[in-house]
């Protein structure tokens, strides 16, 4: 484990934050979340980010996803300078580079598991057949081969999260961002989801940034960063034990 410094070993930086400042709200209600934050994560890493509520973990993921612009500084992922891109350009970039996994899955209730997974592929120039093949492949990968035609309401939380993972990886992105992916799951389902994330990292070389409260989840990462009061610090032994 190499929890600190924020420039993680391995080169060159796949994810780079340089002097990033970010605040929420405006006027008197303005709250500074980060000022002059820097971070470098190499390709193929699996990083867990821990920290108290309100420390800006989700804000950080939003910035990495290009959903939230920064006030100052530079955000670059795989050589793409997000801070220099417009909203539509960032949307297009997300469809190719990024997979996102949410705590509450965020599946479309009226679509089947397969259709939910297929959704991001609708933006790609693929034939229906190619799309269906890719969907079948990733559903098999997360162990839901037999659940393609089921709706989210017919599935357990663990299964829904695996559909969420399948949707995140169906475009074969280089980077996965996960916000509390096990936060809503029981032990066993959490273990299964973390297993899949571990395999995606080891076998397919996906770079993963995962926000979590769960020390067990953090242990499946290669590195752990602790975010507190807008700055990274070494993860204390209490979180990892």
């Amino acid at each position, binding site marked *: 484990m190499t929890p600190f410094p924020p420039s993680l070993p391995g080169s060159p930086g796949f994810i780079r934050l340089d002097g990033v400042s970010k605040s929420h709200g405006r006027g008197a209600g303005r709250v500074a979340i980060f000022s002059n934050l820097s971070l470098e994560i190499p390709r193929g890493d699996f990083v867990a980010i821990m920290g108290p509520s309100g420390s800006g973990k*989700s804000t950080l*993921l*939003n910035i990495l*996803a290009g*959903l*939230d612009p920064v006030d100052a500084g530079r955000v670059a992922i795989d050589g793409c300078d997000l801070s220099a891109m417009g*909203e*539509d350009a960032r*949307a*297009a*970039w*997300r*469809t190719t580079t*990024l997979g*996102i996994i*949410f*705590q*509450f899955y*965020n599946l*479309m*209730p*009226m*679509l089947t598991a*397969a*259709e939910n997974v*297929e*959704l*991001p592929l*609708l*933006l790609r120039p693929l034939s*229906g057949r190619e*799309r269906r093949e890719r969907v079948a492949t990733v559903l098999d990968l997360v162990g839901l081969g037999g659940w393609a035609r089921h709706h989210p309401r017919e599935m357990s939380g663990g299964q829904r999260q695996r559909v969420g993972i399948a*949707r995140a990886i169906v475009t074969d992105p280089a980077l996965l961002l996960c*916000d*509390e992916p096990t936060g809503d799951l029981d032990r066993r389902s959490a273990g299964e989801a973390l297993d899949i994330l571990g395999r995606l990292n080891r076998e397919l070389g996906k770079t993963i940034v995962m*926000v979590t409260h769960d020390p067990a989840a953090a242990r499946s990462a290669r590195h752990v960063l602790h975010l507190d009061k807008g700055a990274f610090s070494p993860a204390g032994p209490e979180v990892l034990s």
Partner: protein
Amino acid sequence: MTLLRLIGRNLWRKPARTLLMMLSVAIAFLVHGLGQGFLAGSQGSGGAEAGRLVVQSRNGRGQPLPHADAARVAAMPEVAAVAASARIRGYVGTERTVAVASAVDPNAMAAVMAGDLDLTPALLAQLDGARDRVLVGRSLMEAQGWRAGQRIALTPFQIARADGAPWSFEIAGVFEGARPEIDTHFMIARYDYVNAARAHGRDSIDGLMVVPHPGVPPAALAARIDALFASSPAPTRTQSEKAFLDALIREIADFRLVVTLVTSASFAAILMIVANTMAFAVRERSFEIGVLKVLGFPARLIVGLVLCETLFIFVTGGGIGLALARVAALLAGPELGLALPPPVVARAFLLLIALALLAGLVPAGFALRMTTANALRFR
């Protein structure tokens, strides 16, 4: 799955809501279709031939013109055909039903109405046997339940008989309109008979119908006709047949205005219903729209998806409404005189698209603002 399927899934997640929106659009376009069918049909001036002119006295409709005017107009080089007509309005049968007999030279009438009324030589020959024979239009014939060969009485409001009795005619045959919007709610009597038997105003007429030669601008001919009689004791006023009929109909009620008001009101109502319901539906889905945004769907695609939903509701509902209006026009028969010719339907469809885009603007605006300002965040 395709984007189309995605739109469908969103539309049918609350089927009752979607069906109700379609129903309200269908009703509005049924009303619109019936209103337009009425204006385009024989109750309106839709059957009027734009090139045909109507010549009347400048002193007012119903004031007589000399019958000799017909020959002077017929002699003009721009004129292809002329028919002089004396109109007898009166009661037929019970004192509740009003009918009109146009006393004309049947051959001149056939020439003027060629293409609109099927006044064939065989049919016209039926009038030869006796001077008091008439040809009755299909619409009037069916409304009265008359049979060919039957004798009918017409108690006139004007053009009384010299002997004071009602006019008595024998039905020699039935004429048809070439298209549904052609008015056939009248009968054709012989001018020579009516003129000889009338009490007053012999050799006078109520007006002329004039057909210009092809290529002659009707407005220019109208001016020339009026100039011809400008200094005569009975100056004329010449209008297109359409303008004449519009003025005639407006004397009863301004149907165009009434129809426009009624359909505008129903359009305004569905516009508000659909725009509001769709906006509600989109707001309900703000979370899902956020997910699409996070997955990389560009804002314009999301807006397009929402617009397509409204478009589908309008095209389906409006299509059903117009189809019903068309069925009604076919079933109603000639008395109602509804007509929905293709140009009217095409115009209604353009209106449909315009209203759909208008109604879609509100929910699309919601979707757009949602995707830029409140895009889904990690929780």
